[in-house]
């Protein structure tokens, strides 16, 4: 199946739910609404055999959070993009559909403070246990401030 055929098939199947762009060979970008993400992922898994998720990238665009789900099948890479507002950073979990997504969703929760609803295991993954609440390092407005050094028992 060539790229153009696959795009046509995907477009016919998903209809108005997805905007499909192909910026280069073997690279497809599907834009879907955040509310549709689980539906679209389930559909492409069942109808097109897209089972392999490489990772989930989060991007802070300043006005919204963009999530990219990087899927691939042997012939094609599919990147499903969705946007969620900064004020209400919530997205539904795709782990029930793609069990391998769990670690990436936990990472997104830690780094961007996006609440993944319905995640089977939502504990912090990479940030330390004593990390202060409400600090999300990969947000663009987060700046690292080195804490003042405290020497135990010393003067400092």
């Amino acid at each position, binding site marked *: 199946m060539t790229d153009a055929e696959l795009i046509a098939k995907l477009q016919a199947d998903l209809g108005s739910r997805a905007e499909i762009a192909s910026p280069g060979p073997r690279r497809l970008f599907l834009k879907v609404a955040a509310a549709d993400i689980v539906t679209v992922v389930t559909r492409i898994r069942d109808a097109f055999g897209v*089972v392999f998720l*490489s990772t989930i990238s989060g991007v802070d665009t300043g006005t919204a959070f963009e999530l990219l789900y990087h899927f691939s099948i042997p012939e094609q890479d599919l990147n499903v993009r969705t946007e969620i507002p900064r004020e209400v950073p919530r997205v539904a979990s795709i782990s029930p559909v793609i069990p*391998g997504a769990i670690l990436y969703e936990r990472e997104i929760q830690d780094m961007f403070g996006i609440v993944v609803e319905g995640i089977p295991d939502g504990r912090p993954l990479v*940030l*330390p246990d004593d990390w202060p609440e409400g600090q999300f390092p990969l947000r663009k407005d987060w700046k690292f401030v080195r804490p003042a050094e405290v020497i135990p028992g010393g003067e400092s």
Partner: protein
Amino acid sequence: MSFQIPIGPQHPALKEPISLRMTVEGEVITDADIRLGYNHRGIEKLAEERNWIQNIYLMERICGICSHSHATCYVQAVERLMELVPPKRGLYIRYLVSELERVHSHLLWLGVAGHEAGFDSFFMYTWRDREIVMDLLEMVSGNRVHYAINTVGGVRRDLDEGQKAKILEGVAMLRKRSVYYFKIGASEPSFVARIAGVGLLTKEQAVALCAVGPTARASGWDRDVRKEDPYAVYDELEWEVATADTCDVLGRVVVRVKELLQSYNMIEQMVQGLPAGDITVKAPRKAKPGETVSRYEAPRGENIHYIKSNGTEKPERLKVRAPTLANYAATVVMLKNGFIADIPLIFAAIDPCICCAERSVTLVDGRSGEESIVRTSDLRRRALARPANALVKGKAVWPF
């Protein structure tokens, strides 16, 4: 009665900080939990503060074994963003280093696997021979670990005739010795019995949990980025994807042995077919606004970088996913229903560079006195039943 055994994050037997929490019942692991982040260095945030060239060297420092794979994956993406076409000779040298790196990484891993299975002469011989490829890498790039041979638009050092001859000589020697050792490994019944049936991961589980690399290929899932997304030179070379269908540690050993032999072939093809010409083109300082996804088959599996540029000399966002993270979910499944003594073997089999984990573990919590008496006999019973229960599948096809 179940115990929880914490291994790590700081543990004399671990080379890298990671926290494994095993819930065990007798000798059998009933649940496993992995906690990460003890080595989180914030590289993705840091990369947003560095320019395109500085980031090559930052990416190279993500890993100390497959350093070239991160740098190459990043450089591929930046070249696509800058719409650069590196010269063929540069690409051949870049992927020659990739394959040499795969050889050194797989030899290292085979040694570790031999060591974890108690076959230490295998470990010593493979590591001795690994020095041959380390010397070749040093000769080609000037460094043993961080080769720093990549640059945006090509590579930084050229190959001369003398070096080409030395690489061919080294690879011929490696092939001869590897085949000999692996024949010994394949015909050594105690080694095969120790690794067969350990750490089972069915194909369905591998697919569901998105496993990558030799871990997925040993479960019969023939996915290799070099084949399906043939970047740069791989569509010009003759080679095959190595798979096994035993779904256990034995399969993972066999897959890596097959990949080694494929890599030797690829190195020879690349050295013999090295085109003439330049090794690099000049790269601009800035990249146009855009985004790209770059995939690369590292020794441990698929490595993926997502880069978004905003028209300046720094990336807007650089997302890195290294193969070991993708395999953690599968590792938890492999560890379940395994034995404590198999933890290091299973864990080493995804090649996370963490080994010897069983040497000194501490039993904590959930301990109730009277039950432990019952368990002593139970433990012995389980220990005796272990060979009977193990799914020995010594039938994996070795590549000879």
